[in-house]
């Protein structure tokens, strides 16, 4: 029986190699995430401040939801309010090539907002403001779907972005 003096953990040589490979994998993943975030600019939502979900109609941004043109043909902002079981506005039309920033919040329970064919995917939490952008290079129809259970009508909750050529 070996004594307590040996405080080193015994590691099999094969296992040592596997540990190296495993650490290599994980470092590679971190690098890929950094490339996607910094070089390709794919960002997750961040803290955009709060809003009172009970008085959204008096809010300077969400009191009047809809599309705002910032640079005609190029840059747009849209303010969206989610209520059970619909988005306001439901239909948004932008020209091809437009960069659209989506600002959204909820006036009741938690909802989701996932826009087909883009990296726009965010939770809409009452009291919080969610924001992500997408650039539309291909004309067509893109649905945005509520992907968090918000009540018995959840399955019908969606809207559409139309990109005109």
């Amino acid at each position, binding site marked *: *029986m070996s004594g*307590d003096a*040996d*405080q080193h*953990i*015994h*590691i*099999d040589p*094969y*296992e040592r190699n*596997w*540990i190296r490979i*495993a*650490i290599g*994998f*994980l470092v590679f*993943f*971190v690098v*890929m*995430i950094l490339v*996607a*975030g910094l070089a390709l600019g*794919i*960002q*997750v*939502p*961040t*803290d*955009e401040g*709060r809003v*009172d*979900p009970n008085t959204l109609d008096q809010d300077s941004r969400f009191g009047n939801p809809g599309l705002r043109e910032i640079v005609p043909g190029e840059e747009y902002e849209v303010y969206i309010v989610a209520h*059970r079981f619909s988005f306001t506005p439901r239909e948004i039309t932008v020209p091809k090539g437009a960069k659209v920033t989506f600002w959204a919040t909820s006036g*009741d*329970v*938690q909802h*989701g907002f*996932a826009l087909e*064919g883009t*990296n726009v*995917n*965010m*939770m*809409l*939490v*009452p*009291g*919080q*403001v*969610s924001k992500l952008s997408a650039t539309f290079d291909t004309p067509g129809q893109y649905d945005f*779907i*509520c*992907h*968090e*259970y918000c009540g*018995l009508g*959840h*399955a*019908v909750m*969606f809207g559409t972005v139309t990109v005109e050529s």
Partner: protein
Amino acid sequence: MIEDRTTQPVRELTKSEKRFVGIHIIFAVAALSIGIQYGPMQALEHAGLDLYPKLSFLASSYYQGLTLHGVLNALIWTTFFITGFLTMVVIRGLQRPLKYPWLNRLGFWMMVVGLVTTAIPILADKATVLYTFYPPMEASSLFYIGLVLVVVGSWIEGYGMYFTFYAWRKENPGTRSPFVALASVITMAMWQIATLGVATEILAIILPSVFGWTSGTDPQLSRTLFWFTGHPLVYFWVLPAYLSWYAFLPKQVGGKMFSDSLARLVFWLFLVLSTPLGFHHQFTDPGIPAGWKFIHALLTLAVSFPSLLTLFTVIASLEYGGRKRGGKGLFGWIKALPWSNPSVVWQLLAGILFVFGGIGGIINASYNVNLALHNTSWIPGHFHLTVASAATMSFVGISFWLVPYLTGKPLWKPKLAAAGAWIYFGGMLIFSNAMHVIGLLGAPRRTPLGLAPYIPEEWAGHLWRIGFGGTIMWIGLMIFIIVTLVTAVQRKRLPADELVEVPIAESIRDPQATPVWLDRWRPWLITAILLVVLSYGPQLYEQITQVQLTSPGFSP
């Protein structure tokens, strides 16, 4: 066979200890038997076959069924099985009775009262809030009170195990604690730290709002506290499976534990790393700075390290067993494993599915990659490979020796029991693949897709596979339930010389050679708490000091 280095005979569980463990398993299997009935209903609904009108006695809506499916499978089946199994492992591993059996009993019956209290409002359709119960969606107060009782009951069972472990320590100075007992108590300690989040959410935010003592909830803070618990919850499910793969499965295939030290190291790493990373469930949340999300993404990749170690160590000990059974060549040892043993085959297939589950997990955790799949069908596709495969299939495998051990009765129809593993495995491959694919195509989760107006034609080819695979999975698990039930109620008993033993594997190296620092609680516990404080402290401070209870409750 006695693998003890001492010559003392093994102390098996007493009759009353077996009964106490057994009643855990009864509640667990009962919960699973009800919970999985909704699985194929959901899957077939996706495929276009709406059974809800015909089976309205089972659920008045898709969502009520989904609440039952999530709560009974993911919370009740797991928690009852795990506490029962770990109680058995602690007693058998330490070769001594529980220090305070009344404490464990108190914890268990509290869980039972909690289960009943939670179930009543769900069945009455007064808690159709799904198993994540995000506020401000509001359920009957009984739902939350019941959940708190289940969690606190499981803590108390954990304390009972801890006191027993501590008593053993006092009685055996200088001896390394048995790995299986240490791993059990580490799992319960991790659970204790992790569940502080959800306990705070319910007691400090939700219940005061439900009772009308406050003006409402702060949904963002609630989410943060929920996911503080929500991710380590998955380790609570998976660690008992790891324990079985490390220390029981090798014995069942005729081998030994590859490394006692590495197995301990892995469990300590889980204690330290399981909790400080919950923001990876909140990558798409507003109200949390992206920088903190990134830090949690890095910590999540770090916690995959002990799982990668497990992959190696478990395969190595299986190979050792396979070669001892005469397997030759690069892959011959795989064929030599006892695939016809129902307990072994369920666990081997669990491990294979978990490789896919683990890869998916790393993808989910990869920060901005998460935008492609958050809250899509990909996610249930993923966790049916983890909780419904790695954990559930391992628990099924364990049950196939545990139930004969506890009852002294032979397993009924072992061939059928083993076939069930392949059926469930095959169904899962089809189901989970299709769920992942439509998730990437944009299908939302938690949605009866048959009612959704936005489903494109192209999904049809995948949707039927969900219904088909899901139905096959159901058959696999029904085989488990029936085999277990018949085994337990049959008259036949095992003759005295064929009684089932607890298959605890010996380590290839003497456990006494394991360094002392792998058998000490303090450094690991302090590191665990420190990491939680560092990774959650600043954000929790921020969210708590700026709390706004502005969301009144809404019924679904």
